[in-house]
């Protein structure tokens, strides 16, 4: 199943949740919608599911107009952020629900339903919980039951809203790996929403980065990490140093100080310089584009994190390997191994 979204706009009062979103999802993809809260990612997911309606724009499933159908007809599996399990039903009945509410003509007989539910509970490895109620399950178990329930209707698309958002860090890591392998097994076109970059980069085949109702970048996890398309993406993904600079002809200035960096092809004016923390190489004073005084050093396993006051007045944090110990009071030179400059 392919999904295509064209120029979606959705406004809640004066708040623009989606501001012209275009997106194509290929068959069998596992796509992450990544962005801060309020970026419109959940709204986009809910519109694809038929739980919300856009003010304008189009949604196609395999080329067919999906907006002509309600949520009930779209045959989309939706896993809610807080799971939305039916609290008065057992785990078994929760998973069976979608099979039991089908029109009489297409409804399967009881034995088939039981077999199917059993199969799904096996798939999520929770068959031993069939008779429990949702309130008796842990967060991770509820999450997997919600997934089994969504899969019961043999959905054409699987949508997950912050699937790991309500779980603690350890369970979250386990479930990520599990979701990846599950997707590999069932191979349904899947989209999940997350605000956690690590989650998006680790689980998805392709990542869609959103901000303020717009798509900032679509690409593979490597793409969005290694070559961020916009200042927002660079700032949002990975830990970055952000410095306000001025581009004048061939020269880039930080404050009054010209930086020894190439300015080829850059538009003149106020810009932002981004460098990953670990891409700042430490050298003796005067050796790099920047110079600064070490204020404070903390050690994190293999790296040391230093707070450095640049001579331009800005204070930045860098991650340096521990082969050369830094001490507060040292004056050091810094050279960015890689950097990007965005206008604005």
């Amino acid at each position, binding site marked *: 199943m392919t999904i295509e979204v064209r120029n979606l706009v959705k406004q809640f009062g004066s708040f623009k949740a989606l501001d012209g979103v275009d997106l194509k999802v290929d068959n069998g993809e596992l796509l992450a919608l990544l962005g801060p809260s309020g970026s419109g990612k959940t709204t986009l997911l809910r519109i694809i599911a038929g739980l919300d309606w856009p003010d304008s724009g189009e949604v196609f499933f395999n080329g067919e107009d999906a907006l002509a159908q309600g949520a009930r007809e779209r045959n989309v599996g939706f896993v809610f952020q807080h799971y939305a399990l039916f609290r008065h039903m057992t785990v078994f009945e929760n998973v069976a*629900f979608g099979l039991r*509410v089908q029109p009489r003509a297409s409804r399967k007989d009881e034995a088939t339903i039981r077999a199917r539910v059993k199969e799904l509970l096996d798939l999520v490895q929770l068959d031993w919980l069939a008779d429990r109620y949702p309130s008796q399950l842990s967060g991770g178990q509820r999450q997997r039951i919600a997934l089994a329930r969504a899969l019961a209707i043999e959905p054409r698309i699987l949508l997950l809203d912050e699937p790991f958002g309500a779980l603690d860090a350890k369970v979250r890591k386990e479930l990520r790996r599990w979701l990846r392998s599950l997707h590999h097994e069932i191979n349904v076109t899947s989209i999940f929403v997350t605000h956690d970059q690590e989650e998006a980069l680790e689980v998805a085949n392709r990542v869609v980065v959103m901000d303020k109702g717009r798509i900032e970048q679509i690409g593979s996890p490597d793409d969005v990490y290694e070559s961020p398309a916009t200042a927002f993406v660079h700032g949002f993904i990975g830990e970055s140093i952000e410095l306000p600079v001025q581009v004048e002809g061939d020269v880039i200035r930080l404050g009054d100080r010209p930086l020894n960096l190439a300015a080829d092809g850059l538009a003149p004016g106020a810009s932002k310089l981004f460098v990953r923390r670990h891409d700042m190489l430490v050298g003796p004073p005067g050796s790099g584009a920047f110079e600064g005084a070490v204020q404070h050093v903390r050690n994190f396993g293999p790296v040391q994190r230093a707070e450095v006051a640049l001579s331009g007045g800005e204070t930045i944090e860098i991650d340096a390997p521990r082969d050369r110990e830094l001490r507060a009071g040292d004056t050091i030179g810094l050279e960015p191994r890689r950097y990007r400059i965005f206008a604005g």
Partner: protein
Amino acid sequence: MTMQIADSVSLPSPDARARAHAAAARDSLRTEPRAVRMTIIALAIVFLSVFVVLPLVVVFAQAFSKGILAYLSALADPEALAAIRLTLLVAAISVGLNLVFGLVAAWAIAKFEFSGKTFLITLIDLPFSVSPVISGLVFVLLFGAQGYFGSWLRDHDIQILFAVPGIALATTFVTFPFVARALIPLMQEQGTQEEEAAISLGASGLQTFFRVTLPNIKWGVLYGVLLCNARAMGEFGAVSVVSGHIRGETNTMPLLVEILYNEYQFVAAFAIASLLAMLALITLIAKTVLERHLDEGHDASDH
């Protein structure tokens, strides 16, 4: 296992002792001298006993003052039986109507966003702030001989006032908010996610309501029906205005209490009153039980 429990009882751990000290310290900051405490408790108990318990006791004492036989024969009186029947009938009609309305209104108000919602809830609450007498009066003004529909009704030979329809209407007016008010906050708190999940799994609107929504609110429904029923059976002012007090025909139990009392038939009056008092007590007990269920549901959804 048992050893462990015995240990922990006889020798509180340092931790537990520290907690006990902390609790004591907190209490001393947050309480009053013993004399003040005792006075406040005594005032509360005396006030509630005089103003609430004693009237309740008086009802039963008066009802049985001439012995159990007099009590039973008062209840077996045809007029009493007619009043009981009418009360049950009227309560069934108005509770039934308000149950359906309450479910419908709560669905519209709790599951959807629209402007003017607060105003609509205020309108539903109106009957709570209208004097019972006025609740009866408005129907007299509509359907009475000089009322807006009075002559039309007379021409078509339809009797509303001084008959069952009028009594049922006035009772429905008075008990209008109970079910809706019990359900709206409950359903708002539960949100729409379970319903959305059901719809996305292919359930129809009715399937969603009966299989997902209703099981979640069943204690709330019972709670609303219980309070609605208590008020419907006990309503006096509104019914008094529209009933016409036709003996054996339009007298509900509370109206019969009044009539018997004014005729100095105290045993009979209090016998009927004792039935209504028992209804009130049963309602209170059931209400306490239901509130516990509702709290549990609340806790379960807290995770």
